[in-house]
């Protein structure tokens, strides 16, 4: 599973018709299950991070699967019209932020 949707943060996008993540996924891998969004086909994730960027609550993080040497670092992305913040949270607790745009 290369993305994790934090169910404690996800609110099912009440302001929209669809979950924003559900709408944007280029693989149609995410679907709303009742009130929350769920990754329905985790092995098919392409790691494009479209959902990570689209979530209005920042509930989704990207990580590398174990199969490709993932060590648990999680990436979240916060975007506005001017810049993007790429927030890497490592397992040890440290954090690294890149800024683009």
């Amino acid at each position, binding site marked *: 599973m*290369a993305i994790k949707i934090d169910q404690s943060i996800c609110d099912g996008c009440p302001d929209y018709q669809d979950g924003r993540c559900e709408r944007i996924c280029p693989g*149609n891998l995410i679907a709303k299950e009742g009130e929350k969004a769920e990754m329905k086909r985790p*092995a098919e994730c392409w790691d494009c991070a479209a959902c990570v960027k689209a979530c209005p609550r920042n509930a989704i993080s990207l990580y590398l699967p174990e199969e490709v040497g993932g060590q648990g670092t999680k990436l979240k992305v916060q975007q506005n019209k001017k810049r993007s913040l790429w927030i890497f949270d490592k397992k040890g607790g440290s954090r690294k932020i890149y800024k683009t745009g």
Partner: protein
Amino acid sequence: MKKKIIKTDLLVIGGGAAGSYAAVTARREDPELDITVVEKAHIERSGCLAAGINAINAYLNPGETPESYLHYVKNDSYGLVRDDLVYSIGRGLNKVTREVEDWGLKILKDEDGDYLKRSSRSIKIEGENFKEILAAEVERSGVQVLNKTAALNYIKKDGRVCGVFALNLKEDKFCVIKAKAVICATGGAAGIYEPNNSGQAKHKMWYPPFNTGAGYAMGIRAGAEMTTFEMRFVALRVKDVIAPTGSFAFAGGRQVNEQGEEYLKKYRRITTAMRLYATVRENKEGRGPCYLDLGHLEAEKKEKLAQSLLGMCPGIVLKWEDSQSGLSELKVEIEGTEPYIVGGHCQSGYWIGLDRSTSLPGLFAAGDVAGGAPKKYVTGAFVEGEIAAKSAVKEIRGLADDFLNLNISELITNEYQRVKSVLDNSEGVEAVRLEEKLQQIMEHYAGGRSQDYELEASKLKQARIKLKELKAESRNLKAESLRDFLAVQELLERIDVAEVLIEHLLYREETRWPGYQSRVDFPERKKEWRKFVNSRQNPASGEIQIVEREYKSLDEYAAFADRCQEDFYLEYNL
């Protein structure tokens, strides 16, 4: 599953680079036209550009011309390309680049305000949001976009393509979309072979795993002529994350083997294929793994490199952040990918005319699904989208108003039943099981990565037999929802592509493109094989027939074409 009938003038299948540009062009050509784009995901982030890109690799920097572009592409492709198609792309590359910059794409500039050159035909961009910019322009143009709508098969009546059957995954509807002209822009195909990674990472690849050859398969089934499937594209990518290597190469990365030797220097002619082939050789002969070695990188330089990669492949930066070491020495391991079938980097796809018409009346093709013109990349896809749109609009003008009053009720029933029978089939097999089988067959018998991409006749013949058995098994698939049916459809698409691929791989009895198409039983390149291997499937019998087409140089096209090339360029503003 309800039915929905839609009528439109121009139908574009696929909302990617080529499809988006085609839709916008068509709207400009004729503001009165009813234009519909069908996209199986959402146009905002679908296809190759989902994560963004950080360079445009088909742009003519000062000193480069359409002629030099053709010369480069032809040389890199060992002399066999469609000169006319490649040249026509060369004529439009810079124009489409300036156009998308106008739409909002951020192109980096040097101190003089010119585009920042990465190499002769490459410029740097900040394209993380490139797809959103394209989608916004499509929306602004007022074109109708049907998202979450997956094309299944062409509607073909009296030998002409006049629309498509599709599934709307969101509304759970079977759609019948009639159109006066159709542009296929569905991209290439991944997942034909076993992927680089496995388990939960199996879709961690370079090309979109969601590009499964829909357009190729629909065309194959309808009897369209296809070209050069045997020139597979094997990319050289960063191991595990399968990240592009361009940024590393341009940051001064040396391509070395385990002993630190710059092994490309041992080869006479360094083409894109050779970079891959040489790497396979180094590994095979025990001098691997191979790397792109950037040596000691100052923290600031490394930070800048990471920033440029985030807007295209965040996975590689995730990998760096994951690793324990501080990493001032940067050395990334590179490896070949699974073979992809694409008309962007290579030239597999529809056999098309200069005007991007296919062999099927009513159908045009643009982008990775169109063949004959390797190294077209994103901007090449734009140029083809523009040409196809102009051609399709012209075609539509010549048709009667009542053209769409066709009786296709039997065709509708047949296709609807095909879908329904899978949805009703509780005893069938899941698509993922047969996907594994397909990939295993191709991997072992048709030169996958684990076989060093090597091909030879007796194994290919085994692949042919096993694919036939698999095809029979694929008649007993099940799906519990339309989303599950999409997985079934994508599997069937890949099988159709694989069957044609095997015939092409068997037919070309030489090695023209090392690594991409290496026949160990015919290891030399032969002059007499400087010709195109094309194919057509018989829609009734399913039999695949090979058709040879001669290679022509650009000048020869000017002499033989039914219209002078100069007239074409004038008319198409290229």
